[in-house]
């Protein structure tokens, strides 16, 4: 589904990713772990097409297509989703309208009729109930004045609506207390299925107890230095990243 090959990329002059390769198959959950500043978030930004980041080598194939050639909105419509670590606030734009706009863009892409506000409202209510969300979310401006936990829930709500093929969850547990984390993780688990894949980017192994990955990768200094299963995450829980950072 998603095939990253020898990917090199950076920001300005600095090369941050130094030849990453990763294959994600349908239904798989991958955990990408590593300390801050070693390229985890850069990887997610490259995948969604952030204009400030530059690819210097390698390639990414998504559903057999060259992902890197697509503009960001095309990548999204093809099924690439990023749940932001820091969701962006958009003052003045109503959250429900924003969600409907995104939903209808996807329908348009699939050559389906757009959904009118009333039908969409029903759909949205159902998804929000499923994520245990307050209906006030609909009335507010996109992410504006949301608490950290509310913003994260809003990200998962969008994921639930858009049903992406590959969802990248960037530090989805940061800023969440344990109850909110459980709700979010439960939501994500319900959304995971045989047809879609998850990339869970995290500094701490905690989230991986709630969303169990099939594969775990350790990203240090722009390289995947080790891959394994759930046991690797458990090992990191006790040892931390120190041993990886010392050895060059």
């Amino acid at each position: 589904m998603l095939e990253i090959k020898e990917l090199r990329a950076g920001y300005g002059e600095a090369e941050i990713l130094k030849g990453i390769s990763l294959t994600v198959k349908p239904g798989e959950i991958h955990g990408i772990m590593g300390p801050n500043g070693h390229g985890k978030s850069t990887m997610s930004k490259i995948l969604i097409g952030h204009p400030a980041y530059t690819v210097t080598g390698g390639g990414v194939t998504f559903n057999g297509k060259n992902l890197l050639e697509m503009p960001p909105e095309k990548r999204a419509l093809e099924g690439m989703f990023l749940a932001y670590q820091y969701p962006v606030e958009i003052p003045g734009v109503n959250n429900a309208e924003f969600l409907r706009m995104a939903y209808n863009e996807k329908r348009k892409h699939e050559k389906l009729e757009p959904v009118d506000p009333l039908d969409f409202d029903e759909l949205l209510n159902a998804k929000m109930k499923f994520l245990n969300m307050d209906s006030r979310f609909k009335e507010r401006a996109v992410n504006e004045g949301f608490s950290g936990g509310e913003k994260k829930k809003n990200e998962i709500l969008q994921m639930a609506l858009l049903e992406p093929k590959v969802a990248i969850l960037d530090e989805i547990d940061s800023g969440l207390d344990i109850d909110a984390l459980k709700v979010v993780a439960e939501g994500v688990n319900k959304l995971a299925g045989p047809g879609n894949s998850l990339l869970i980017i995290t500094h701490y192994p905690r989230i991986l107890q709630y969303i169990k990955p099939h594969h775990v990768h350790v990203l240090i200094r722009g390289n995947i230095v080790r891959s394994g299963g759930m046991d690797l995450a458990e090992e990191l829980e006790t040892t931390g990243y120190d041993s990886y950072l010392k050895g060059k």
Partner: protein
Amino acid sequence: MAGQDKKQDISELTKREYKYGFTTDIEADVLPKGLNEGTVRAIGAKKNEPDYMLEFRLAAYRQWLTMKHPDWAHLKIEPIDFQDITYYSAPKKQEKLQSIDEVPPEILKTFEKLGIPLMEQKRLSNVAVDAVFDSVSVATTHQKKLAKQGIIFCSISEALRTHPELVKKYLGSVVPITDNFYAALNSAVFSDGSFVYIPPDTKCPMELSTYFRINTEGAGQFERTLIICDKNSSVSYIEGCTAPSFDTRQLHAAIVELVALDNADIKYSTVQNWFAGDPETGKGGIYNFVVKRGKCLGVNSKISWTQIETGSAITWKYPSCVLVGDGSQGEFYSVALTTGHQQADTGTRMIHIGKNTRSVIISKGISADVASNAYRGLVKVASVAEGARNYTQCDSMLVGDKCSAHTFPYIEVGNENAQVEHEASTSKISEEQLLYFQQRGIGKEEAIRTILNGFCKDVFNQLPMEFAVEAQKLLALKLEHSVG
């Protein structure tokens, strides 16, 4: 990669076309360039005006000679040669037109192309239009229907002759000839404009509208609008403007005067899209220097200005309200967009004189490319204005990092019971916001449109429905390529 994309987007902007930049080839009756007492007399004579008008004009002209061009605005204005302007240009015609069918077909086509059909069968059914082409009004629709209710809607030249008592009483009563440099100039040379009178106890059954079109190169447009709303009456009035794309500057110096008597309600909306000049070089475009003022003379009267300013090389105007009647209300809702090399210094003045007068100011300035956008507003509460209240909200949005926004609020409160509130904010459309939309499958253009609509919502809500849609489209079109 990213840097290149941005540059490409900005260069796209220079290719952006001004949709209304065409000229109409029609024989015109044009006065030679230049301004002297003879010019003023010639305009009066051409229009066959009564003597009282000529006296008004000459007094204004003599006043103008003693005045200096104002320089206090936050604007870079090239010196204007007032002798290099044509003060009168009108489509040639022999006699006064009896009906719209007599309007030259080229002109009808021009207005149709602009989306303002004047012909009986195609006319906008719920909007009466006075069409002003260069210096004169060429057609006014729905006149007879309105006359049945006693509503007078005609060109000001016509009103000078047919309703001298109203014109004498109110012309210059809100904006006196001595008011400022451009008020004096306009009073001396104004060639046409619209006149509206709503009799007592009448709610005008349709929107009234004037559409201004500058056609002749080098012609200035100096029109004059006078709207009087008598007791317990209401009217909603819309003004639209376009001009061809010429390399030379053109001057548009209009005066709009509104008078609201007891319990009267006037709503005045403007969608201004004059030619802004070349977006890359800044050459050409309209200098839009307009004096707009309303007087709430009666008790509980209300005047509301809504403006969407998207065009012109320079926009310099402050639609204002003088709140004389007790309990009267003034409102100002504005979106001013500047892109390319455009400059705007706009805002309002709310002068509270009556007791319990209220005013609201909502101003949204959007600036892109290398444009400059200034809000300037005065809230003045006289010592006798017991219980006066004002709320001002002034927001600026910057698109890109070479543009600028400035806010100049002036507050003068002479009564200790007055309540004056001022809120201001500045924001930017960021790359991160656009990417967030894109990451959800929504294209950049749609994202910009959505963010802008959100930003301008409070103002758009004030516009008559179909004009709100137009205004939204216009903004999106203007900014399409400005966000990198």
